[in-house]
């Protein structure tokens, strides 16, 4: 093996950026907490753009050099210490999430802004700190090179996400939050059980070291199964999705956007890390088909239930259940029968693009739905008549998000589905192509229902509760446009996703 000795265990130049990406949110949380009052908002609004800049620099670095960025924390190399690593996947996720965070921050400024001189207010204070926490947790999920560090990241994500659900303190949202918390705790404890068993077998939890040491053993299989079930519960993959719709639909709009766009992607990302990076040869044909079946069931079930919804936010939440399903189709499609390995090429690229395009589109749609709710005082789909004339920008943002979900060109959704369809052809698994196409059909149906109601004339003159600020509409529109134009990355840096993948794959081929 030529690269068996390349451990990725030396800090690279610019590695300090990785530390910054984690320390900055942590410092922001602590500072906001102690300063209180309006500082939480100010600190978040200053730091989040910085987060985008850092993510961009990391991305460009990885892209240009074609190498990982590595930072060895405390100068203790794995297995004793912890490494932070940015490969193509993590750099891409970080940039995409940073864009969503910035847009959400602009959007939330209207709902959670506090006036000059007013005392500390509960909801804004909590919201901004929790937003920074999710940002930090996502960075840690992307960069963490150690499965236990990733457990801490998962818990950060949980503790930040659950209070967001019930910020308004209504009984339904409290119930949704409690349910979400129980599912999430079950998920993380199962994940933790898996890490215990893996440590017991290999005395390391470092991803790169583990990928070199794992062997097909009972303990390893049990560990991987437990971790996967736990992560499925957190990702809300069918049939562990029950917590998602009430939680995502009940939260305030800005929070829904973050929860649906970002938080579920965190645990999905760990599923990818686990199966593509740590043990690409373990899933096997049957396992990858099972993942695909669950994904397909999620697509069909989520879409069908979405079609029956009376309320806009619930419809969008069920659509999230369906869209998560696509992410798991990559497993059967990435499975290479010849080497019995998951190949981190075509299908994985499609999956990551799907994750990003869903993140941007869904955040835009939740924001749009939130604006419609705020303007009308309700979100009953049947009574949306006239809203397209009253809030054209909002409805356009919603529609563009839908375009990406359906998968029309040139949207990111189109590119993702195109790549996945290509993979079905290449691997000869036509049945997944049917699922992908059926999902698109369902999505167009419920999008059509909503949009046809929105452009219809109102049955009675609309009474507006509030005037919707322009910049909120703009934030939603920008995200929707980002999702729409994501398809053009096909001309650009898609290959960045491969950075850092090749070597871990080659090593496990021994």
């Amino acid at each position: 093996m030529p690269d068996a000795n390349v451990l990725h265990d030396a800090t690279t130049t610019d590695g300090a950026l990785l530390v910054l990406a984690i320390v900055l949110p942590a410092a922001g949380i602590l500072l906001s907490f102690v300063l209180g009052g309006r500082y939480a908002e100010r600190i978040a609004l200053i730091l989040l753009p910085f987060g985008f800049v850092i993510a961009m620099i990391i991305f460009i670095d990885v892209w240009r050099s074609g190498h990982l960025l590595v930072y060895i924390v405390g100068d203790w190399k794995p297995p004793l210490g912890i490494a932070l690593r940015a490969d193509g996947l993590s750099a891409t996720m970080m940039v995409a999430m940073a864009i969503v965070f910035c847009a959400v921050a602009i959007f939330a400024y209207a709902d959670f802004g506090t006036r000059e001189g007013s005392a500390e207010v509960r909801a804004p204070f909590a919201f901004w700190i929790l937003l920074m926490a999710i940002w930090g947790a996502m960075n840690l999920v992307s960069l963490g090179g150690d499965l236990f560090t990733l457990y801490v990241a998962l818990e950060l994500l949980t503790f930040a996400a659950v209070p967001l659900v019930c910020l308004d303190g209504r009984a339904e949202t409290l119930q949704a939050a409690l349910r979400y918390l129980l599912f999430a705790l079950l998920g993380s404890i199962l994940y933790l059980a898996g890490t215990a068993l893996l440590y017991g077998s290999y005395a390391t939890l470092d991803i790169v070291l583990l990928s070199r040491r794992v062997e097909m053993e009972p303990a390893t299989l049990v560990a991987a199964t437990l971790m996967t079930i736990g992560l499925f519960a957190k990702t809300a993959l069918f049939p562990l999705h029950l917590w998602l719709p009430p939680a995502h639909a009940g939260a305030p709009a800005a929070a829904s956007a973050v929860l649906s766009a970002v938080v579920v992607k965190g645990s999905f990302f760990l599923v990818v890390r686990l199966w593509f990076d740590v043990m690409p040869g373990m899933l096997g044909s049957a396992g990858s088909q099972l993942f695909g079946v669950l994904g397909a069931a999620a697509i069909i079930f989520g879409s069908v239930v979405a079609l029956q919804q009376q309320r806009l936010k619930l419809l969008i939440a069920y659509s999230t259940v369906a869209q998560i399903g696509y992410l798991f189709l990559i497993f059967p499609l990435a499975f290479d029968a010849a080497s019995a390995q998951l190949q981190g090429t075509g299908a994985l690229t499609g999956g990551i693009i799907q994750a990003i395009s869903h993140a941007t589109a869904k955040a835009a749609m939740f924001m749009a739905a939130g604006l419609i709710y705020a303007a009308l005082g309700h979100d009953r789909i049947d009574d949306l008549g006239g809203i397209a004339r009253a809030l054209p920008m909002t409805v356009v943002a919603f529609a563009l998000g839908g375009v990406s979900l359906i998968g029309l060109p040139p949207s990111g959704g189109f590119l993702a589905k195109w790549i996945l369809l290509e993979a079905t052809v290449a691997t000869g698994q036509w049945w997944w192509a049917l699922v992908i196409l059926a999902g698109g059909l369902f999505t167009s149906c419920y999008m059509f229902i909503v949009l046809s109601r929105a452009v219809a004339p109102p049955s009675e003159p609309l009474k507006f509760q509030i005037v919707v600020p322009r910049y909120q509409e703009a934030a939603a529109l920008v995200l929707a446009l980002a999702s729409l134009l994501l398809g053009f990355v096909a001309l650009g840096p898609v290959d960045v996703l491969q950075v850092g993948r090749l070597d871990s794959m080659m090593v496990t081929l021994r």
Partner: protein
Amino acid sequence: MTISSAFDVGLVVLILAVGAATIAMREAFAAVIGYVVYGLLLAMAWVRLAAVDVALTEAAIGGGMTGMLMLGAVARLRLAEGNDIRTSLPVRLAAGVLCVLVTAGVAVAILSPPKTIPTLAPMVMENLAQSGLGNPVAGVLFVYRALDTLLEKVVLILALLGVWSLAPDSVWGGIPGLRVYARPGSTLTFLAQLLPPVGIVVAVYMCWVGAKEPGGAFQGGTVLAAMWLLVMIAGLTSVPSIGERWLRRLLVVGPVIFLGIGLAGMVLANAFLAYPPGYAKPLIVAVEVALTLSIGAALGLLAAGPPERV
């Protein structure tokens, strides 16, 4: 069978029996009491597994603090409406099968250890001298895996914020709804006057020996939290409102100092969360002292719950 293995078998049987009872009992109150007993038995199991640090943490947090939290909740929930019907039999059967499968899986994993059992213990010990610490667990927590420990403190702050955020808007910045039983001259007051001095000495001792022997910031912090709660419940000191400046500062002082020293390591040593050679031990002790205070405050406030009055 030797005496010690007979003891182990007895202990395991007791743990499983009490554990099963906490699940099976109909009365929530009885189940919670069972859980406290269970926590203490589990602490003994940790001693038998030669993990005294964990035993201390489990006894203090797993049994003590969690039990107290649960008891408070049961007392309040008693007033609630009678609860819903039991889960249907098919569901219970399906769940039973699932749980047997999971148990079997974990058991198989435990019964098939690798031929040579890998360990990091020698590596931990080899490098421990550099830091001047004597307790290998403290070495892992504050030297090798300091990042996890630091971030876990942030998790604690977030959890507290999450608990606080459940308060109604009108009482934000108010006083947590800890039940106070202030009756001057009562035995509780007596206990709250007598125990804290001892408790504080114990906490300081635990934090101090943590560098050399079992103990440390977590265990010391938990004892501090318990003493603080006792004094508050007895009404000897008022429950602080969550907006208090000193309280917020106390809560973050540990993580902030930890983070600060970590960042200084980028300049003074050669990496984030690395300690300059020769200064490792004093720096770690400083971090531990600050963390003990912050952890104590955070655990106490987590147990006290969200603000309920202004």
